[in-house]
């Protein structure tokens, strides 16, 4: 499997490590009223789609950047690769 790194171009998937669902970017506010419930959802509940899935990959044997990879879990086709920091900033995160 080849991941087309947005900065470095096509790189072999063996250079990367997989973390999981890209929703992990949306870490809940630990000080909110419903923090316990929100963290329960965040830590344990995942969608398991047969099809398009957005997931976090880490370029461990490369430039050490985190990526959000959109991959079809049925065909392994990768349709989109973004820098995770760009995705996080687009969702309003400041760091």
């Amino acid at each position, binding site marked *: 499997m080849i991941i087309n790194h947005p*900065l*470095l171009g096509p*790189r*072999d998937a*063996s*250079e990367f490590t997989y973390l999981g669902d890209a929703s992990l970017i949306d870490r809940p506010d630990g000080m909110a009223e419903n923090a316990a419930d929100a963290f329960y959802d965040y830590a344990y509940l995942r969608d398991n789609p047969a099809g398009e899935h957005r997931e976090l990959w880490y370029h*461990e*044997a*490369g*430039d*050490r*950047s985190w990526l959000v990879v959109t991959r079809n879990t049925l065909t392994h086709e990768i349709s989109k690769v973004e*820098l995770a*920091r760009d995705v996080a900033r687009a969702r309003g995160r400041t*760091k």
Partner: protein
Amino acid sequence: MHDLVAITALGGAAPRVDTVGPVTFTEVPDVALTSVAARLGQEAKAREALANVIGAPAPDIQRIAGGEKTAFWSGPDQWMVEAPYNGHHDLADQVKAAVGNTASVTEQTDAWVRFDLRGDGIPSVLELLSQLDLRCLSSGTAARCSIHHVGCYLLCRDANHYSIYGPRSSAGSLHHAVLTSMRSVY
């Protein structure tokens, strides 16, 4: 004062040199190294400050730039700066003074071992070791890759001169891997 003898990463009193066929593989101990990581929101200023340090624009993605002090790209808004050890034993302090609060600077000198490959046909040696598309690697390119399961920086200074930076604690393994590849090719 203790009377200590300086040894290289491979444990010798002098740098190890191996020549196989057209390629010469040399341990290069006299290099000072430091990392520079731009701080959030200060990226443009850090880039400018780094340019003043190396006397050239801060290198772009996977590039090398500079003169006596050279910087190579190591990640988004991150660089490594290298310089001859003589005159730059305090390289991190020198760079920190130049970049101020725009970037975080970390001393790296003794964390890495540098090996240089010189001669014709170096890509034939490296393609047994690395997944990089070496035939597309132009002069002035720096890329991170795995060599023998060791995370390294590979610098193509020109077609007949490559440098490898690997973790100093894996110097022996890295040396063995490259030398084995040289012997199998030539």
